[in-house]
C-alpha cells in the first residue's frame, strides 16, 4: 500500500464499511467516464454503417459492426501521410537530440569566450511563445526557398532546442568532472568524453526528452500548416484537419481515420508510459 496521503482509514482492522474508499472509486470512475467518452464515441462511430451515424439518440453499440470502414479510411489517409509524420518526428527527435546534447556539453565542459552571455540569451528566449517567432521564421524559410519542403518543416523545429540545451546542461552538471578528467589523462579528446561518457550516462534523460519531443512533433499542426502545401508532404495532423472539414457526410470514415491516426502514438504510450510521465515531469517548462 503506497498510501502517501494516509487519508483513508485502514479497513483491515476495523469492521466498518470503507465508505471513503467507495467514494474514491466513485470519483475515479466518474472522471474516467468523461475522459474516455470521446474515445468511445470515436471508436463506436468508426464501426457504424453509414445509415446509423446520424441517428438520434446516438446508438453507442454499432449493429452490425462494419470493420470495412477501416480499410476505406486507410486508403484515404494513405501510407504516405504516416510516413511523412514518421519522418518528421524521427528527424526532429534525433536531430534535436544530437544538437541539444552537443550544445549542452559545450556549455558544461568547455571554456570559450562569451559562454555565459550566450547561455543567458538561450534562457531569455525560452519565455517567448511560438506565435511571436512563427511569422519571421516563415519569412526566413520562404527566403531560403524552403517553403513546402521537408527541410523547411524540420530545420526550424530543430532550433526549438533552447529548452533541451538548458535541460541537458542541468543534467550534465550532475556528472562529476573528474570522470572526464581521468579520461583526458588517458588521452581522450572532448568527442570521446561526450560520446563515451556523457551520452551513456544520460540515457534516462535522453529517453524521456526524446519521448516528449516525439509526442510534440507527431502532434504538431500549426507549423506544418504554415509551411506545407503539397499533398505528398502532409503529415497526419494536416490530413486529419483537412478531412475534418470535408467529410461531414462520411462521419464513420472520418472517425476511422482519426482512430488510425492515433494508433502509433497510443502503442508508443502503452509500451513506454513511464517515459512519458518522466519526460513531462522533467520538461515542465516546455508547455
Amino acid at each position, binding site marked *: 500500500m503506497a498510501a502517501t496521503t*494516509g487519508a483513508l482509514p485502514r479497513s483491515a482492522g476495523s469492521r466498518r464499511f470503507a465508505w471513503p474508499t467507495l467514494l474514491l472509486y466513485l470519483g475515479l470512475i466518474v472522471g474516467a467516464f468523461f475522459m474516455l467518452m470521446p474515445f468511445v464515441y470515436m471508436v463506436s462511430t468508426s464501426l457504424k454503417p453509414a445509415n446509423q451515424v446520424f441517428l438520434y439518440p446516438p446508438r453507442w453499440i454499432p449493429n452490425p459492426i462494419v470493420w470495412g470502414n477501416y480499410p476505406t479510411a486507410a486508403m484515404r489517409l494513405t501510407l504516405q501521410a504516416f510516413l511523412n509524420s514518421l519522418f518528421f518526428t524521427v528527424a526532429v527527435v534525433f536531430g534535436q537530440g544530437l544538437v541539444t546534447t552537443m550544445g549542452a556539453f559545450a556549455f558544461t565542459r568547455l571554456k570559450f569566450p562569451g559562454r555565459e552571455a550566450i547561455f543567458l540569451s538561450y534562457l531569455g528566449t525560452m519565455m517567448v511563445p511560438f506565435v511571436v517567432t512563427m511569422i519571421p521564421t516563415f519569412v526566413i524559410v520562404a527566403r531560403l526557398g524552403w517553403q513546402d519542403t521537408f527541410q523547411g518543416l524540420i530545420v526550424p523545429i530543430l532550433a526549438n532546442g533552447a529548452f533541451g540545451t538548458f535541460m541537458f546542461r542541468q543534467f550534465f552538471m550532475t556528472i562529476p568532472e573528474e570522470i572526464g578528467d581521468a579520461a583526458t589523462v588517458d588521452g581522450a579528446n572532448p568527442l570521446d568524453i561526450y560520446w563515451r561518457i556523457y551520452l551513456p550516462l544520460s540515457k534516462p534523460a535522453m529517453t524521456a526528452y526524446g519521448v516528449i519531443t516525439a509526442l510534440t512533433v507527431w502532434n504538431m499542426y500549426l507549423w506544418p500548416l504554415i509551411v506545407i502545401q503539397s499533398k505528398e508532404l502532409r503529415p497526419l495532423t494536416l490530413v486529419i484537419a483537412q478531412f475534418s472539414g470535408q467529410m461531414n457526410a462520411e462521419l464513420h470514415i472520418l472517425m476511422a481515420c482519426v482512430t488510425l491516426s492515433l494508433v502509433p502514438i497510443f502503442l508508443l504510450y502503452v509500451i513506454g508510459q513511464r517515459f512519458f510521465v518522466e519526460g513531462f515531469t522533467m520538461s515542465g517548462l516546455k508547455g
Partner: protein
Amino acid sequence: MSSTFVTPISEPARSPSRPVATPKAKRRFRREWLWALFFLGPNLLLFLTFTFFPILFGFGVSFFRWTIIEPPVFIGIDNYQQFFFADRLTGKVVTNSLVYTLSALPVSVLLPLGIAVMLNQGIKGTAFFRSIYFLPLVTSSVAAATIFKWLYAKQAGPLNQLVGIFGVPRQDWLFDEKLVLPALIITAIWHGVPRNIIFYLAALQSVDRTLYEAAKIDGANTWQQFRYVTWPLVTPTTFFVLIITTIGLLTGAFDMISVMTQGGPLDASNVLVFNIWRTAFVNFQMGYASAMAYILFLVVLVFTIVQWRLQKRWVHY
C-alpha cells in the same frame, strides 16, 4: 524531481565561471575553443537563425506594412495604433481570449490536483485509472478537436443526449455565439488535465508520509490533512502549474479553433492566436500580425508578472 522543476532557472546550479574546486587547475584541452565551436556551432547557428534573429526581426516587421508580395513600407507605430484604436475586431478578440483563459484556468489547475490526490491513495486499480486519465495527453489536439466537434453536433451529438437527460433541449453548441466559447473551454480542459495531473503526482509522491501520521495523531480528519498538510506542500507546484497553464491557454488554442470553428460564428470564438494566424497567413498582413503577436507576448508577460507578484500571498516554499 518535483522540487527541481518548479523554478529550474533560479536553481543554484554551478555557475559556468565558478572557480574550479580541485586544487590542481582543471586539465585543459588543446585548442579548446575549436572544440567548443564544433560542439556548440550547429546549436548556436540554429538558435541564432530560427529563434534569436526572428524575435528581433518580428519586432522590426511590426513597424512595417508588408503583404509579402509588395516590398515592406515603414509606417512607424501605425500597426499598434490600428490594433488599439481602429480595428473593430480588437475588443471582441481580446475579450474572447480573456474569457477563454480565465474560465478554463481555475478548473485546469484545481481539477488535476483533486484527481492526483485520488490517484495517490494507493488503492487497487490506480495504474489502470492513471492510464485512462493520461490518454488525452498523447492525443493530438487535431484529433481531439475533430472528435469534440462531433460530440457537440446538434443533430446526433452525444452531448445533446447527455443534457437531454436533464430536460435541456438540443443545442447547436459550436454555431451558437453564446455556447461556442464554453464548448471550446471544456475541450481545452479535457485535453489539458492529464499533463497537470502528472506534475501534481510528482509533487505528492515526494511528500513525507510521517507528516500525515503526525497529523492523524493530532486528530486531523481527511479534509484537515489535505488543507494543512497536502495543500501547503503542493503550493509551489500549483503556482508552477498556474503559470504554464495560463501561458498554454493564452497562446495554444489555435489547433482546436482551426479545426472546430475557424473563429466563428461571427468571430465569437476568435481569439488572439487565431486572429494572428489569419491576419498573417490568410490576409497576408505580416506587419500587423507581427504587432499583434508582440502585444500577445506582452499580455503573457503581464499575466506571468502579476502571478509572480501574488505568489507571496499563498505559495509556501
